[in-house]
């Protein structure tokens, strides 16, 4: 049976891993390659490296770091941040990334999804969506959660799916950093409506939260950062726990 995936996310700024609480107050959490390797050895199923400042400052992504990651890491990894056009994708895939995650650029110009799918295949195209629920309405945000849009989460996710996205990485800004669990209601609606895998992001604080993202949120994978970076949850113990809860995981 296909396993549910556990994905540590490494937010990168100036070549270092950082993780914000509710997208602000950045704290250092280590060297990206050493950390990625350690996670891989503990049983992480994939890694996500996000250049979190790239989109905001408009600078190009971190190709050199990607090449070094590809040399050292023997599990799949996704890179994102500041990808605006097909040439950026080509550059990162050539450097050895398995998938790219696009966010703001896709919201601004949805055709980018079609282009990536056509040139490189859907499997490399992860569409990341940062969304916040206000008065029962889930709105998508641009630029790492800094700019609100009129776009509805579910509507956008379905469009991304239709255009050829390979996966949706959904981050609930209401839940991110507060460690009270994932946005399971929204997640399950996404997972049930889309025909592609959904990665849950934002809100992991305990092992039970991961279980709930899979059982209640119907997520195909769950992503977290600080609980792993600061050693609050070990990946191996998390997977052993999930296995006890009858969730298929790779151990």
């Amino acid at each position, binding site marked *: 049976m296909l396993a549910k995936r556990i994905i540590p996310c490494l937010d990168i700024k100036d070549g270092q891993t950082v993780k914000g609480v509710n997208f602000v107050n950045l704290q250092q959490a280590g060297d990206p390659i050493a950390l990625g390797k350690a996670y891989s050895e503990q049983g992480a199923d994939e890694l996500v490296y996000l250049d979190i400042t790239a989109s905001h400052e408009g600078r190009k992504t971190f190709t050199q770091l990607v090449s070094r990651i*590809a040399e050292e890491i*023997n599990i799949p990894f996704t890179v994102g941040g500041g990808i605006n056009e097909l040439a950026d994708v080509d550059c990162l895939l050539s450097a050895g990334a398995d998938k790219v995650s696009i966010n703001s650029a896709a919201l601004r110009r949805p055709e980018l999804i079609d282009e990536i799918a056509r040139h490189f295949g859907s499997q490399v195209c992860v569409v990341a969506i940062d969304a916040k629920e206000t008065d029962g309405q889930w709105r998508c945000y641009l630029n790492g959660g800094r700019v609100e849009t009129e776009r509805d989460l579910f509507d956008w996710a379905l469009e991304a799916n239709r255009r050829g996205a390979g996966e949706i990485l959904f981050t609930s800004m209401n839940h991110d950093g507060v460690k009270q669990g994932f946005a399971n209601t929204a997640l399950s609606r996404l997972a049930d409506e889309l025909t592609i*895998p959904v990665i849950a992001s934002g809100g992991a604080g305990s092992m039970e939260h991961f279980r709930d993202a899979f059982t209640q949120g119907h997520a195909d994978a769950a992503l977290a950062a600080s609980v792993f970076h600061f050693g609050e949850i070990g990946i191996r113990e998390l997977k052993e726990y999930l296995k006890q809860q009858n969730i298929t995981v790779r151990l």
Partner: protein
Amino acid sequence: MQVAIVKYNAGNIRSVLNALHRCGVEAVLTDDVETLMSADKVIFPGQGEARTTMTYLRQHRLDEVILGLRQPVLGICIGMQLLCRHSEEEDTDCLGVFDVDVVKFRPTRHEDKVPQMGWNTIGDLKSDLFKGLSKEEFVYFVHSFYAPLCDDTIATTNYVQPYSSALHRDNFYATQFHPEKSGAVGERIIRNFLEM
């Protein structure tokens, strides 16, 4: 040991070079006939679509070169599918080493998504390629098309239904999954191939 990787228009070939490097082998990425023919091992990897990759192979006469190889060859992912007889993807005639036709997953349950993306187990292992592995190991898959079970099946995976996750005939070995992305298990499989 000389290991050559077939250079063609498929994606994700660098990850195989990197994986071999981690195993202590510096492989060459080449479409040069002499280099491919004289290598001790040849790897035919990649991600891509059947028709465009097959057309490229024919145009560059690499189809004949691959079929003429006598040393151990390892096909990976689209490389495996191209070694089969035919692919339903764009109704493409392939190289025909393995006597099986590649078809698309047709799931009946919503939770079985296409492509299959992620870690699944390989079982019913019947080759030295899997020497040293325990009964059921997880490996990494990304694919929408699959080879059904057949006489050449050396590993079975269950997704939608049981299918061939690895094939073997004569000097040709092939995996649907990506050993180069399958952690320690994948590294063991690559080392096993290098020892063939």
